[in-house]
């Protein structure tokens, strides 16, 4: 009567989502951070609409990156602190299945949530509505890729002092390619040009990361658990 990988994954997903929604304040924090950071730029530079439109891709993407990173630390931290991470590791399920389920659940409540409120932020940055679909598609793929990279970083740094700073230090250089492709796709969409090239590269990066990162994140977690 053992439990298959599919049922295990859905059970862990339910666990993660249940836990996330029991703390709605923690759910909202990265989103609010996203809003606040994007507000900083017009204040620091200028509210002139054409300038905002020019810098919108960069501001959106950097803010999304930083907001996602902020919540990444929590992926394994709570479980490591109360000892439930070990229980998951000893559940008889492959640790990879658990890592995949946790990362997907995390992306749903952070990255996907960012994508959903991105039109709100984009409006504040004078992004035309026609650019929204491409912007949201690129943000969806970008935040998913970032969640995988963040899972590797979180697996390596959970339990370390100043782990959150180290996590950002590790993940940000690895995230530069996705920033380049994603911001470019958004930029081209704003300019009304085709964003196909950048989107294809972003998609390739997303697929590549999704296939290999779970292995690395699982290995990282095993090192941490020792």
């Amino acid at each position, binding site marked *: 009567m053992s439990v298959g990988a599919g049922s295990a994954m859905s059970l862990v997903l339910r666990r993660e989502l249940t836990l996330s929604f*029991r703390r709605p304040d923690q759910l909202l924090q990265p989103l609010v951070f996203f809003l606040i950071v994007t507000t900083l730029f017009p204040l620091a530079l200028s509210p002139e609409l054409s300038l905002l439109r020019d810098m919108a891709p960069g501001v959106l993407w950097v803010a999304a990156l930083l907001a996602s990173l902020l919540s990444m630390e929590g992926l394994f931290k709570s479980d490591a602190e109360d000892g439930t991470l070990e229980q998951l590791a000893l559940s008889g399920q492959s640790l990879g299945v658990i890592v995949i389920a946790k990362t997907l659940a995390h992306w749903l409540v952070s990255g996907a949530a960012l994508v959903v409120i991105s039109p709100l932020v984009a409006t504040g940055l004078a992004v035309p509505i026609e650019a929204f679909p491409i912007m949201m598609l690129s943000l969806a793929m970008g935040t998913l890729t970032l969640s995988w990279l963040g899972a590797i970083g979180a697996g390596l740094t959970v339990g370390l002092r100043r782990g959150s700073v180290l996590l950002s230090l590790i993940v940000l250089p690895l995230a530069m390619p996705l920033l380049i492709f994603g911001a470019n796709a958004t930029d081209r969409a704003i300019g009304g040009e085709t964003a196909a090239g950048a989107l294809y590269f972003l998609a390739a990066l997303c697929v590549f990361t999704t296939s290999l990162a779970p292995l690395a994140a699982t290995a990282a977690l095993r090192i941490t658990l020792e």
Partner: protein
Amino acid sequence: MSAPAYRLDVDRVHVWRGDRHVLKGTSFALAGGELLHIWGPNGAGKTTLLRVVCGLLRPEQGTVAWLGQSITAVRADYQAALAYASHEPALKSDLTALENLRFTVGLKRRVSLPELRETLEKAGVGACADLPTRVLSAGQRRRVAIARILAVRAPLWLLDEPYTNLDTRGAEFMSAMLEEHVDQGGCALVVAHHDLVLARPVRRLELAA
């Protein structure tokens, strides 16, 4: 109907933590129907030994074998056959006792919610089933952890200081559950810094600091 022949073999395990040689060639064998009490002073490596037996920590030298096979070869199956209780009760404070059990036991075997409620009742915390564990007392949380061990129905129990925070009744209950498990052919490895008082004679392994 004979119980399957469970057997855990730990052979000359060495573990270093930084510069400290924590485990120096520890060896023992544990068969079905046996209980081994691991004791020793603080820092002797009791918890480290337990984590090696769990398969969480790979020793620099030595092997651990379950049913004759090295646990690194059959890791998932081995871990499905064990129930581990750490020093902390390992419960999510935002989840209810029932949810905690559901999300851990449910990964090991298909189990229904009424069955989990029954197990919580048996452990004396049936009334706490729908309360978030953060409002439970330390003793109640320990009982929920015991309920988890019972619900998993694993042949090998690895328990680290299972009597922590238990009152006299709780301690009696824990001992009764240990006896029942071992009588039914299961194996148990118990780390405790105090004496274990059970109806049966207890084998002991002392770890020196």
